[in-house]
């Protein structure tokens, strides 16, 4: 209906809390969960006369993310003071970057609704510091301030307003989270606030050349909630337009329980942060040689892995996507394909028996006891026909979990699980099976070829599951076709 007339315009600002040991401009710890106001220093407390010094890791991580997003890295970097008052930011300003963001341009690739690749361009990524935390719900009359988070390094990543649907926003954030996790610069945990997202959203008539009034939506603590908040906000704005109501430029907050947004503050006047160059922090010059060094150290990133898995290893796009989705899974897969060239079998093992074992026992793959070498040996056992895949997955694998340091083949021998491909003993089983159902033999001969399954079942039963199915099948067929 009327929604088809409109087109949403979405831009996302993502705050990425960096996994450094110490803060952006001082040596106090960034550890999460410490007792309130213990991870602090005179710098993060905003005492007068103190001197901030830039953490070199913040520069390194910014360059890493910039390179991973195909950005241009700025050579001459300045820091700037963004002035405003807030109780959890004791200096009265945030040390940020203004005119000289360290990363410029670049893009994130997502898949649009038709499954086509689409680039979302990045405007900038700049370095800044986090504020402390205000706690509003512990004391009815006061707000409590904890400055442990004050000064923790952040990267703010701003997209161009090129995101067209809440679904695209979801994908964009999923890709950003994957990237920061692969780069190991942020844990990407939106629930705990180490990755945060603000959305700028407006709607306009399709094909219009001027954007509608822009609304900023905040406080969405999961990627899914960003999508829900946008869905709601777009609908709200369209309703306003349809009913000739004005949309105000304002900041709204998302209520995850109700699934709605409500006004947080109105922006009557443009913000006035009186930015000026931070005189306490000299320029940081990022030389090309430094950028090249970081580039050379970058881990394999999701896009590259996808290319490799689908083009070189012959995995399906689905399999590749599932493996790459989590860095810890792809790390295990990488270790596995370093010791086996059965890439497809390795993927099947990882996504089949290994994943279900980990899921059932709630074990993260980082704590999985079986070494990739043993899984490779198991794959080899199946390939050589010594055990069937079913026996390997259902019998040998559980034994291996119990005895992770044992060799799979010894376990299979010990457990009497080695497949019987000895023709003589197979022949006995096949003969017995056929002798058991003379009437079925006649039916088979008169054309009911499906009955072969019945004889195979009998052979497997007689051999206690150890008959090599391929050979047994061949023998059954041969005997039945005789005369």
């Amino acid at each position: 209906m009327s929604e088809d007339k409109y087109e949403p315009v979405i831009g996302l600002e993502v705050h990425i809390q960096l996994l450094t040991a110490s803060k952006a401009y001082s040596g106090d710890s960034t550890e999460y969960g410490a007792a309130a106001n213990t991870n602090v220093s005179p710098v993060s407390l905003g005492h007068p006369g103190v001197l901030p010094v830039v953490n070199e890791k913040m520069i390194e991580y910014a360059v890493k993310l910039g390179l991973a997003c195909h950005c241009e890295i700025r050579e001459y970097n300045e820091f700037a003071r963004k002035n405003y008052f807030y109780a959890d930011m004791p200096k009265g300003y945030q040390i940020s970057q203004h005119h000289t963001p360290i990363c410029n341009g670049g893009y994130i690739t997502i898949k649009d609704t038709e499954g086509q690749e689409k680039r979302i361009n990045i405007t900038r990524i700049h370095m800044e510091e986090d504020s402390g935390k205000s706690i509003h719900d512990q004391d009815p009359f006061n707000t409590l301030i904890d400055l442990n988070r004050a000064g923790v390094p952040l990267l703010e990543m701003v997209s161009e307003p090129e995101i067209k649907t809440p679904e695209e926003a979801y994908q964009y954030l999923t890709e950003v989270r994957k990237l920061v996790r692969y780069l190991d610069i942020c844990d990407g945990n939106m629930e705990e606030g180490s990755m945060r997202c603000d959305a700028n959203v407006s709607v306009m008539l399709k094909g219009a050349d001027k954007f509608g009034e822009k609304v900023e939506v905040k406080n969405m603590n999961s990627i899914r909630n960003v999508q829900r908040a946008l869905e709601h906000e777009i609908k709200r704005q369209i309703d306003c337009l349809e009913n000739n109501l004005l949309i105000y430029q304002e900041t709204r907050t998302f209520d995850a329980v109700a699934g709605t947004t409500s006004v947080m503050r109105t922006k009557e006047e443009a913000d006035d942060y009186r930015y000026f160059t931070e005189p306490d922090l000299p320029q940081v010059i990022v030389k090309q040689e430094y950028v090249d060094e970081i580039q050379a150290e970058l881990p394999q990133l999701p896009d590259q892995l996808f290319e490799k898995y689908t083009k070189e290893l012959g995995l399906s796009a689905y399999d590749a996507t599932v493996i790459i989705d989590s860095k810890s899974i792809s790390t295990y897969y990488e270790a596995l394909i370093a010791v086996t060239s059965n890439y497809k079998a390795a993927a099947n093992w990882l996504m089949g028996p290994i994943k279900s074992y980990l899921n059932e026992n709630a074990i993260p793959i980082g704590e999985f006891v079986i070494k990739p070498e043993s899984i490779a040996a198991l794959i080899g056992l199946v390939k050589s026909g010594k055990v069937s895949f079913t026996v390997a997955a259902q019998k040998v694998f559980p034994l291996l979990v119990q005895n992770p340091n044992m060799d799979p083949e010894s376990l299979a021998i010990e457990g009497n699980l080695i497949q019987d491909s000895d023709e003589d003993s197979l022949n006995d089983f096949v003969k017995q099976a056929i002798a058991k159902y003379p009437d079925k033999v006649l039916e088979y001969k008169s054309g009911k070829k499906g009955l072969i399954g019945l004889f195979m079942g009998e052979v497997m039963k007689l051999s206690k599951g150890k008959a090599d199915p391929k050979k047994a099948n061949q023998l059954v067929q041969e005997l039945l076709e005789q005369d």
Partner: protein
Amino acid sequence: MKIDNSTVDKLADLAKLEFDAESKKEIVKDLSRVLDFVGKLNELDTENVEPLVYMTDETNVLRKDEVVQEITQQDALRNAPKKDSDYIIVPKVLQSNPEV
């Protein structure tokens, strides 16, 4: 630059301060005097002078990412006008910092 009541109102708003009418008059006068004084610099011709941003030629003054614990929680809370055993206490604010 002309300082009038609306300039003072705007500055007061940014600085989260409040003035009565009497103080406002004084502040207009004071601010004008300071600006006139600094305005003297405008008499110099700076056409071909590069702006001086930093008082040092040093660049890339960086620290290693190492934790240094300089003070205790007790030290941290010492200067807070209001506090309990763990927190700095401020008047009730409704929302968290909207900027970060």
